């Protein structure tokens, strides 16, 4: 029986890719360099002089924050517009209102770097939502 070709169309990209891989084999792997940056930078905060701005991020909520590093041992952590969950948590007394809905978070044990303090505040936020 003779076959008459009427029209043709390209195979789907997924099929072409699969066939291409079968012919070529697996290509060389490309190592991805990992970044070694401070936690504050990894979380997308910005630094301007001794002031850092960004958001404290948890799986439940994110809050705008500001951190002022007066010295290596004197760092102030601020949080903007804490939620009801934070206001109801046991650490609410540690938040000092500084006007315009900004709160200074009092550290009982002071961190030795900005990133460690950020982690402590993010952990507090998580606990506030889980309690």
């Amino acid at each position, binding site marked *: 029986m003779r076959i008459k070709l009427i029209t043709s169309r390209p195979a789907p990209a997924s099929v072409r890719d699969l066939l291409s891989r079968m012919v070529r084999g697996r290509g060389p792997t490309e190592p991805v360099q*990992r*970044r*070694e*940056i*401070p*936690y504050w*930078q*990894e979380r997308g905060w910005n630094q301007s002089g001794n002031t850092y701005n960004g958001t404290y*991020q*948890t*799986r439940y909520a994110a809050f705008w924050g500001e951190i002022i590093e007066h010295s290596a041992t004197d760092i102030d952590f601020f949080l903007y517009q804490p939620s009801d969950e934070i206001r109801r948590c*046991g*650490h609410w*007394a*540690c938040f000092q209102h500084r006007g315009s809905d900004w709160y200074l*978070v*009092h*550290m*009982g*044990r*002071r*961190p*030795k*770097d*900005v*990133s*460690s*303090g*950020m*982690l*402590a*505040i*993010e*952990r*507090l*936020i*998580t606990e506030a939502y889980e309690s």
Partner: protein
Amino acid sequence: MKRLSVVVAGTGQIRDVEIQPGTTAGDILNQLALKDYLLSKGPNDPFLAAAESVYDKVNDGEKIFASTKAEVGLRACA
């Protein structure tokens, strides 16, 4: 054996370690000479106590954080 990447939060430096069953958080911090630091899997997880076994709590190749001890208002507020 499990491999772990310990990220020093303040600097971003990554220290790769291999741990055996029973290795504690304190063992890792001592080995890395990170005095006054605590280990955690991140802000959504609690700190690992020094005597706590880390092996069962992490997956092979996982990244964990080492941060200096910090606590919100422990003495004044809690």
